């Protein structure tokens, strides 16, 4: 990324009522970048966004905008605009007036306001909706108004706080595309907060994975998916089997009582590591051909593939395969060296792992209520 830095967070920390929300965050945002802050609820992503917007003042650390310190600059003086989680449209104003709100404050002439509002309405495909009551719009339409309202001010940076959270799946996909297009066309820096990893991967230039008030990994979507830095990231982004292993030597790792070849190096000898194997990277073969053997616990039809749970050495593997296998059948697993990703042990090491349960489900349930603070 060659663009210049527009926002820098340096050692930013924040706590509410003695509870640490942000723990020494360092983050650089570049111009024209589409950055996503990704993490489960309570990880501090929304707080980070609110610090950038100016609604929250950090306890310590520096917030820089264009190289200038803006810690104490109130929100209305920042050239940053926000698309709020539940849109926060002004219920007493119609569509036109909502969008024109920011320009009215700047005492722009009516004619110019008209031109720019129409331009925005065209962009979000809401022409003709000018005099509609915002309370009577559908979720997707409200979303568009919120985006238009935030963009009309021509902010340098647009902050989006889970803007698609309330929309249904299809509409969500469309809006993802639209947002991405808008970002590309306008060249405005987007900082996007979500807990939805798929959304993050498909839209962003840069993904920032956060947990427990800390940044876990910053990288492109491919990096994040293929080279997770720790068990948390591996688990949070996509499905993964995370197994305890030992690095016998460079390119050689041992887990499940077997030695495997891999592409990783640079660990000390016999260092305990976390091994990540993505379910789609495992091939199902006959038991005798398999590098590992086990008995099928259950099989679930998922449409594009079957989801197979296999117990091997007391560890429940998840495998995605297009071939059907029957439960209680013995099968073998074959894993290519490039399907194995080795990570250093971290504080998250034993928190995730096998598929006796889908802990992600719990996350999604709690997402419905989201961080209210």
């Amino acid at each position, binding site marked *: 990324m060659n663009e210049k830095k527009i926002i820098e967070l340096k050692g930013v920390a924040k706590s509410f009522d003695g509870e640490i929300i942000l723990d020494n965050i360092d983050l650089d945002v570049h111009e024209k970048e589409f950055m996503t802050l990704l993490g489960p609820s309570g990880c501090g992503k929304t707080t980070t966004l609110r610090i950038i917007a100016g609604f929250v003042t950090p306890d310590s650390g520096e917030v820089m905008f264009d190289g200038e310190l803006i810690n104490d600059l109130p929100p209305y003086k920042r050239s940053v605009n926000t698309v709020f989680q539940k849109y926060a449209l002004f219920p007493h104003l119609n569509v036109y007036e909502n969008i024109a709100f920011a320009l009215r404050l700047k005492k722009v002439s009516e004619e110019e306001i008209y031109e720019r509002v129409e331009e925005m309405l065209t962009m979000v495909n809401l022409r003709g909706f000018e005099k509609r009551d915002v309370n009577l719009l*559908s979720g997707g339409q409200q979303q568009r108004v919120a985006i238009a309202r935030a963009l009309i001010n021509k902010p340098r940076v647009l902050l989006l706080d889970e803007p698609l959270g309330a929309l249904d799946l299809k509409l969500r996909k469309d809006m993802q595309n639209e947002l991405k297009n808008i970002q590309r066309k306008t060249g405005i820096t987007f900082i996007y907060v979500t807990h939805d990893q798929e959304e993050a991967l498909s839209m962003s230039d840069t993904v920032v994975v956060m947990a427990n008030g800390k940044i876990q990994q910053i990288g492109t979507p491919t990096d994040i998916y293929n080279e997770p830095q720790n068990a948390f990231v591996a688990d949070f982004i996509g499905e993964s089997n995370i197994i305890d292993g030992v690095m016998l030597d460079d390119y050689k790792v041992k887990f499940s009582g077997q030695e495997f070849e891999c592409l990783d190096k640079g660990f000390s000898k016999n260092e305990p590591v976390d091994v990540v194997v993505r379910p789609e990277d495992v091939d199902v073969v006959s038991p005798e051909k398999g590098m590992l053997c086990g008995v099928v616990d259950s099989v679930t039809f998922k449409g594009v593939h079957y989801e197979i749970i296999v117990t091997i050495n007391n560890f429940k593997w998840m495998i995605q395969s297009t071939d059907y296998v029957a439960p209680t059948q013995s099968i073998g697993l074959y894993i290519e060296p490039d399907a194995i990703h080795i990570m250093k042990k971290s504080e998250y090491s034993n928190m995730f792992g096998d598929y006796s349960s889908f802990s992600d489900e719990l996350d999604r349930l709690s997402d419905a209520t989201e961080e209210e603070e």
Partner: protein
Amino acid sequence: MKKKIAQNIYTILVFVFLYMPIAVLILYSFNASNSTSTFDGFSLKWYRELFSDSASLNALKNTLILAILSAVISTIIGTMAAYGINKMQNKYVKSATMSVTKIPMMNPEIVTGISMMLLFVFVGVLIGGKASLGFGTVLIAHITFNLPYVILSVMPKFKQMDKSLPEAALDLGCTPFQSFFKVELPQIMPGIISGLIMAFTLSLDDFVISYFTIGSGFETLPIRIYSMTKKRVTPDMYALSTLIFVSILILLVVSNLISDKNRDKMSKKAKKITKIVVGSVFGAIALITLIVLIASAGTKTVTLNVYNWGEYISDGSEDTYDTNAEFEKYYEEWYYEKYGEHINVQVNYTTFASNEDLYAKLKSGATGYDVIIPSDYMIERLKADGLLQPLNLNNIPNYENISDQFKNPFYDSDPDEKYTVMYTYGIIGIVYNKDKIDPSDLEKIENGEAGWELLWDEKYAGQILQFNNARDAFGTAMYALGIDVNNATPEEWKMAFEKLKAQKPLVQSYVMDEIYNKMESGEATLAAYYAGDCLSMIANNESLGFFYPKNENGEYVTNIFADAMCIPAGASNKELAEAYINFMLDEEHGAARANAEYIYYASPNKTVFEDLEYIDYLGEDYELIYDPDFNEPYGNGEQTYIEYMFATYAYRDMTEENRARLNGLWEELKVDSTSFGSGIYIVCAVIVVLIVAFGVYKYIQKRQRRRLYWNNPAPAKFENTMSIPKVVAPNDNNTPNSTN
């Protein structure tokens, strides 16, 4: 930070404003004297007073009973109504019901009060004049104005409730009733409770509506306070308010501590204690109610409804004689001796502020009174209206104690048929402040040459108080002009009116009870008032003086009045009423003297005014209250001076025509305020103009803004899925635009 401080200062200022009068009343509840305007040292005496003031405590009890009953009933009816209205299918029926429901909220209290009074009076007349105003009518009135508040606080809870909740309950096997009580009721409970509290509060503090709908034998605290307006609001009312304030404050603090942070953390023990405390409070309330009910249901109880002026009986305050309690005791004993049977006598003692109030009550159908104590002219009128009944003097042997010259007053002159027994009499005089009055006027007063003209002296502009009641105010003007108050011609009425109108710019205020504070604190210099009350003021402020005004001939020209006990027609227990009247005249039990000492008006009772101890008690004031001049023979010697005064200067009942004239002229005087500048109107007009201008500005602005986009075509159909149309970067300002 600075902003925060400014906010806090502002908040504090508003609260200071809200609590300033409360602080004042708390301060004066500890006053050593009975003034509510000058502080004379710390004392707890008013708290002691309060607990011996059975009438006030009774009024407090009544107020609470009324508030609880009306709150509970209106909550029940209101909750049912909210449920029913919420379920109504027909939109028009629903909105019509809601509009009617809201009427008592939107209507001024005074209109609600009088409209209900009109209804009750009408119904009373319809069913034959039997007591139509009473506890029942106030209760109905309170329930009526509580209802909308209950409904409006319960309604939203029904609306917010998840519609599927009752369905879930039904699905799980509840009957509709069970579903209501087990599922819906707990959901709407917060609404019900806030409605209940609101209703209770409103009912507790209501004065206006009670004032118009209350009847005999029942008095609430606000009514009692209001009827103190002829005498004075005693500081024990301040003490009561202070106690109420402090107990509510404690209750709030405690409930806040419990309900807030600590609810979860609170130990089981604390919860238990809270439950016990709350339980015992409610238990105590229930117990008291029960005791009251049992007490009134147990032994045979007879009640006697006495209706008297405020502060017009020795009521046990300041360690005085408690007349009503003594009577109850006396009668119960007497009855037991006579019939060998226990009886429970209860005197329901209620008070009024003016003869007109009394008449309005009697006339509007509150005929439940047994003993009333109106003044002379009002007695004439009541008698003429057939509202009184003759007394059986055999039941009133103490009638003999009345001095002969008061036995046949003009309003009750037939020696064979007595309707009244005089209670007190008095003369209107002028009270003045020696320190503030001009020395030359002081000299005149001391030489007995001063008359009414002092009240028209421009030297005292803004320092004169005038009666805030038509009869007495016109009286002063007529005495000053030398007009016969009882036979004034229309021209003379007009003259008196002009006289009062001329006085208006000089008058500081038109007062009744306020005169005490205003004279005692030196706020005002001159005022005409009833002699006994003037002397009470002098007792509190040494620099006050008092005299009876004379005309140029050196004759007293002033009003003399008598208040007498009578029994209204239709009194339910005449014998008991006569026993009460007899007791009031009694020497042996001391009621007559105690009342004379308490009220400080002249007593017509020989056993009182000839009592040496009493004479000693009055000291110097004796000569003022019982001016020896008045007992001199007058004219040809057939009557005493006082009889002459009664014959000449007492107010007589007026013809309907004159009454209308008096009220009309008084109306004109009060309504027409020359002293009132136009400043307020100008301020009002300016604000209205500003608001209208702002509205017009906004309207034009809105039109201006809409002009551009209002006629844009509406979209044919909204497409959710779409490709992004050609987007012009927002940095580019020169967007060509086709529309408009």
